[in-house]
């Protein structure tokens, strides 16, 4: 099963994503900010990171930039409530591979993952 790291400051959203993903994916970690996301990525090297944008300490775009700079083959999907075009462009520039906006339902999450990490 593909290994997934979830980075979101909301416990509620981490739970929701875990419920959606755990049937077909192995959740290797859950973190609450961008600093922890970078550290957890280095430690676990998961197949995929589901990355929120608005997080304390360090946001998800900065964390994605660092992960992709050090590991260009990393797969990162921005999983965020932010639906701003300029922010999406920043995410593209940081190297994000996909982008889904909250609120989401299971099919749109699975579709985004399939686009980035085909089964």
């Amino acid at each position, binding site marked *: 099963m593909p290994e997934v790291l979830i980075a979101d400051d909301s416990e509620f959203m981490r739970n929701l994503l875990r419920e959606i993903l755990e049937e077909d994916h192995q959740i290797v970690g859950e973190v609450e900010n961008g600093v922890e996301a970078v550290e957890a990525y280095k430690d676990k090297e998961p197949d995929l990171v589901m990355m929120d944008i608005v997080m304390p300490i360090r946001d998800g775009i900065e964390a994605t930039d660092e992960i992709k700079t050090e590991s260009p083959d990393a797969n990162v999907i921005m999983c965020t409530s932010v639906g701003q*075009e300029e*922010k999406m462009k920043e995410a*593209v520039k940081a190297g994000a591979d996909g982008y889904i906006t*909250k609120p989401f339902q299971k099919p749109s999450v699975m579709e985004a993952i399939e686009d980035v990490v085909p089964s």
Partner: protein
Amino acid sequence: MNVDIQSLGTFNQLAHEGAEQATASMSQMTGIDADVDVTQITLMDRGDVGEALDEQAFVGVEFDFAGELSGQTALVLDEACSETLTNALLPGDAGGEMAKSGVEEIGNIMMSGFIDGWADYLETTIEHSPPTYVEGIGKEILPTAGDTMADDQVFVFKSEIEWVDASVDFYIYMLPDQDSLTELMADHADAESDAIPVDKLHVFNRMTQQGTRQAAENVSMMTGIDVEAEVSQINFARIEDVPKQVGTGRYVGTAVEFTGLPSGFLLVLFDETSAKNAAEALMPTGVEGEELTDQHTAAIEELGNIMTSGFVDGWANVLQTSIDHTPPRLVHDMGRAIIDPLAAQVGQHQDHAFVIDSRMRTDDVEFESEIYALPNDEELREALEELAVERAEETDADPEELFQ
């Protein structure tokens, strides 16, 4: 046609002083101790004017006025308030036609005081018609819209009058003819550098309405509760009146500070019952008891986060900029206590504030939510200067176009 922030402030002050004069006249006639609680100018759809009056029964007095400023005013009071006033004026003889006549006369004297301040400031005369006694439920009490369409945006002045030791619903509404008001505002815009084109303010109001609809859709999608955007309007009020825009009950919700153009604060608030209903609709399993638990507040925090994004993303997309916001901070307190520190922060740089006030609700369960945005007024003016009116509909961005 431009309006400038300074003129809005002056006109708001005029309306407030007029209402104070009117209230002083009433106190002098009746001995009732009263004061003006809040005065604000609101840009809203004509069809939404008076929505806050709910379905309550009111009596009132209406006038037409004409001159350099023309339009209609209405004194609106609930029935208990009317009875107290007429009893004070006509002890023991407060029924029937005499009561109506008493209300009419109080209205006449109060509204003359209200209008006179405007005439003095404009150094002109403003004539008003004889008073007309009116009765009605909710917004029916207000003057009819005439040729104005329900979705035409209008500036409305509203003052709330409070009585010492009594809870009453007592208001002064002024509905100026929009051409007359905007011409007056343009004439008095003495600092071109802080002028806002009226059409851009209208577009911005439409953007906030779209933001409210998006936030309501997000709630519906997350909770399964069919929520509808109800009212969205832009209020302009003195900083000290900003906290009075929010109810006195206890609320749960989120506060964020947003940065970009404009910067400011955004609050998403639910009354406690609505918060509990919305949170439980999000939870996979039921929660025992009546109290709000940590699970409820975690769910509300995420709901507030998603509603915040739904609300401001459209602004960013139309303005072709990005608006960042801090992670949501949970708030749970009396409404005014929640907004007071935010107003104080905004008030460090300005005397008046625009308050974007949006509401959504549903009839399915007890659910109401309010969104308040408090932008920095100078930055809002700059943002509107940059606003391309033809992009007003470009509120949505499609990630699939960028992530192919």
